[in-house]
C-alpha cells in the first residue's frame, strides 16, 4: 500500500502539469460538453494537441500511435486533466469503445488503419448497438448482415446512436445468421458512415440538443475484412466494448465527477450555502474520494495480477448517480436563478444543462437496474433474475 506516485509517475505528472499550463486555452477551461463540442474546430484542435503531445491513448500500443504506458499513467493523465478543468478528447466512442475493442480483437490491418486517426481526432466514431427491439436486452439485435461474395449487405435500424451525425465510422452489432437467436449468429462490423444507404436522423434529447440519432441501413455494403473477431462471434466482441464503455477502470468517470464537485465547491464558496447544503456538498466530496480510492484499488489489483478488482464494477453505477446528485445540488446552490436558462443563467447555464444531461447517465451504457443485476449476479453470486 502506497498512495504516492513512483518517481516515474511523479515526473510524468509534473511534465503534464506544465504542458497543460502552457497549452490549455483558457476559453476551453470548464467546457460544458454536449453539442458545443463540435461547434467550430476548437475541441478537435485541442484533441489533436493532446495527441501530438503524447497524451491521447496513453495505454494503447506504441506502434499504433499510443503511448505504451502503464494504466497508472492514464489515471494520472485523467486526474490532471480534471484538475485543470481541461475538456476531454472529442473521440468519446473511438477512444472509449471502438479503439479498445479493435486492440483486443482486431486484425493487424484494422489496428494500423483505424487506431491513430481516432487518437488524432481526424475520424469520429459512433456505436450502433441499440435498436427499437434491443435495449437492455442487447441479444435481441435484428439488423441483418447478409454475406454475399466477400461483402456483407446490411439492412436495419439502430437507435440512440451518439455522434452518428458527425461520425466517420460505426461499430455495428448485426445478426449475420438469420436463423439464429439471442447471443449466437451475431457479427461485429466496422461500417463506413459515408457509404451509400446509410441515413442518419438526429433525435432531439430532453436537453434540447440532438447528440444521438437513428441510423437506417438500406443495402449498405461492408467489405468482409471489416469484421471484428469471428463471423458469428459478435457477442464476445460486443462484451469487450461494453466492458470499456462502463469504464473498466472508471478513471474517466471519476475525472468528470471531479470537475463537477470542484465547480460545486466553487459555487458554494461564491454564493454561500446553508448547513443542509453544506452537508450535502461534503457528502458528494466524500463520495468522490471514495470513487477515486475504489478506482485506485481496482487499478492496483490490475497492475499486480493482470485482473482488475471486482470493486471496479461499481464505478459507472456510482458515478452516474453521484453526477445526478451533484448537478442537482448545483441548481439548489443557484437559488431562484436555477430556473433561468442558457445565456440568461449564471455561468452560461452550465448547471441547468449539466443537471438535465445527467438524467441520461443512468440509462446510457447500461441502465442502473441492469448494472445492479450484474453486481448481484456476477460479483455477489446471487441467483439469476432472468
Amino acid at each position, binding site marked *: 500500500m502506497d498512495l504516492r506516485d513512483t518517481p516515474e509517475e511523479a515526473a510524468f505528472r509534473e511534465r503534464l502539469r506544465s504542458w497543460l499550463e502552457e497549452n490549455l486555452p483558457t476559453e476551453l477551461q470548464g467546457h460544458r460538453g454536449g453539442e458545443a463540442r463540435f461547434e467550430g474546430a476548437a475541441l478537435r484542435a485541442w484533441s489533436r494537441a493532446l495527441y501530438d503531445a503524447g497524451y491521447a491513448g496513453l495505454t494503447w500500443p506504441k506502434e499504433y500511435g499510443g503511448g505504451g504506458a502503464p494504466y497508472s499513467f492514464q489515471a494520472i493523465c485523467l486526474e490532471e486533466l480534471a484538475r485543470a478543468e481541461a475538456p476531454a478528447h472529442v473521440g468519446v466512442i473511438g477512444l472509449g469503445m471502438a479503439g479498445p475493442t479493435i486492440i483486443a480483437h482486431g486484425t493487424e490491418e484494422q489496428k494500423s488503419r483505424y487506431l491513430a486517426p481516432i487518437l488524432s481526432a481526424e475520424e469520429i466514431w459512433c456505436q450502433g448497438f441499440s435498436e427499437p427491439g434491443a435495449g437492455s436486452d442487447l441479444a435481441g439485435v435484428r439488423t441483418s448482415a447478409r454475406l454475399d461474395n466477400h461483402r456483407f449487405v446490411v439492412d436495419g435500424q439502430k437507435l440512440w446512436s451518439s455522434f452518428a451525425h458527425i461520425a466517420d465510422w460505426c461499430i455495428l452489432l448485426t445478426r449475420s445468421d438469420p436463423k439464429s437467436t439471442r447471443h449466437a449468429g451475431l457479427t461485429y462490423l466496422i461500417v463506413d458512415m459515408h457509404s451509400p444507404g446509410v441515413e442518419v436522423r438526429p433525435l432531439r434529447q430532453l436537453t434540447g440538443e440532438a447528440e444521438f440519432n437513428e441510423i437506417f441501413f438500406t443495402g449498405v455494403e461492408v467489405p468482409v475484412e471489416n469484421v471484428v473477431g469471428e463471423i458469428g462471434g459478435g457477442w464476445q466482441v460486443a462484451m469487450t466494448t461494453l466492458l470499456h464503455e462502463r469504464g473498466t477502470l472508471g478513471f474517466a468517470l471519476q475525472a468528470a465527477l471531479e470537475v463537477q464537485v470542484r465547480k460545486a465547491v466553487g459555487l458554494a464558496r461564491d454564493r454561500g450555502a446553508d448547513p443542509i447544503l453544506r452537508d450535502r456538498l461534503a457528502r458528494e466530496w466524500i463520495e468522490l474520494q471514495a470513487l477515486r480510492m475504489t478506482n485506485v484499488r481496482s487499478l*492496483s489489483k490490475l497492475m499486480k495480477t493482470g485482473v482488475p478488482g471486482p470493486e471496479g464494477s*461499481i464505478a459507472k453505477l456510482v458515478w452516474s448517480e453521484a453526477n445526478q446528485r451533484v448537478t442537482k445540488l448545483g441548481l439548489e446552490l443557484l437559488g431562484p436563478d436555477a430556473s433561468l436558462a442558457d445565456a440568461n443563467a449564471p455561468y452560461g447555464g452550465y448547471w441547468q444543462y449539466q443537471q438535465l444531461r445527467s438524467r441520461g447517465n443512468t440509462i446510457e451504457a447500461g441502465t442502473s437496474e441492469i448494472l445492479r443485476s450484474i453486481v448481484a449476479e456476477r460479483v455477489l453470486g446471487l441467483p439469476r433474475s432472468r
Partner: protein
Amino acid sequence: MDLTFTFEQDELREQARAFLAGRPEPAWEELAELGWTGVSIAEDAGGAGLSFVEEAVLFEELGRALYHGPYFSTVALALPALPADLRAEVAAGETSWTLALAPLVSDLDTADRIAIVGGDGIYELEGAEREVLATTDGSRPLGVVRGGEPGRLLAPTGVLAEIRARALTALALESCGVAGRALELAIEHVSTREQFGRPIGAYQAVSHRLADAYTQLELSRSLALWAAWCVAESDEQATVAAAAAKSSAAETAVAVCETAIQVHGGIGFTWEHELHRLYKRALGIESFIASGTRLRADVAGALLDGKRNMASDATSAPVAVRQGG
C-alpha cells in the same frame, strides 16, 4: 499508486479471522502472544515495528467478530500518548489502556489503566472510580470515571489530532468489518431461502438492495483504506480522510445491517440471530466520538471556510514523491 495489501497482510487477516471465529473475548495476553498488541510499537520496545496498515487489518477483523475487549481503546486511543516504557508493557501484554477523551469512556470494563485529557496534557488517571453504563451495544460498553488524581504526564495535548485520526479510522475499519459480515449473512440467506418457488435472491427487490449494500461497503472500505494509509504515513490528509472514512463507513454499516435484517424476514428480527448484535455495534460506532453529520460539518468547513480551496488540493492529491523503491 497502490492500495492493495501485501501477502503478509493478507495472511494476518486470515490468521485473525480464524483466531476470532467463535471467540470474541480473547484474553489480552493471548492477543499479545499473537503480536497484535505491539503491531506498530517499535522493535526495541518489544513490538513488531509495523504500521497502522497492519493494525487496520486487525480492526476490520475485530469489528467483524464483534470483539469485546480493550484493543480499540489501547491501540487506537491511548497508544500515541504512551511513552516508550509504557508502550513496552502494552506490547508485552502486561497492561491495556483506555483514554477519557469525552465524558463517555470506552472499554472501562476491561482496560487496566486510564489516561485522561486535562489542560495542557494527557495524564494517567489514578484512583478514579469507574462506572460501566448500560449500552445498546454490549460488545463495547461505555462508562464514566469519577474522582481520582492526575498521575504521570504521558504526552502533551499535541498528540490529540493524531489520536482522533487513528480512532476515527479504526472505527471506520470496524464498521467495514461489521458491514461485511452482515452482507455475507444476507447473501447466504437469500441464496438458499425459497419463496414462491425460487430463491428470494432472484427477486430484484432483494438482489438490488444487496447490490447497493455491496456498493456502499466497497466505497466506505476504499475510504477507510485511504485513511489508514494516511494515518500510517502521518500524511497531511489524515484528518480529513479519517473524518470522511468514519462518516461514510459507520452510516454504511448501519444501512447494510438494516438491509440484512430486512431480507432475512422474521428470523432477522430475533434475539438469537447474530444480526442484531452487528446492528447494535454499527449504531454504537455511528454515535461514538462524532456522528456522520458532525464529521461532514468538519469536512464542509475544510472545503468552504479555509483560505485555500481544499477541493483543488486534496482531490487529485499527488502526494510527495516516494524516495527509493
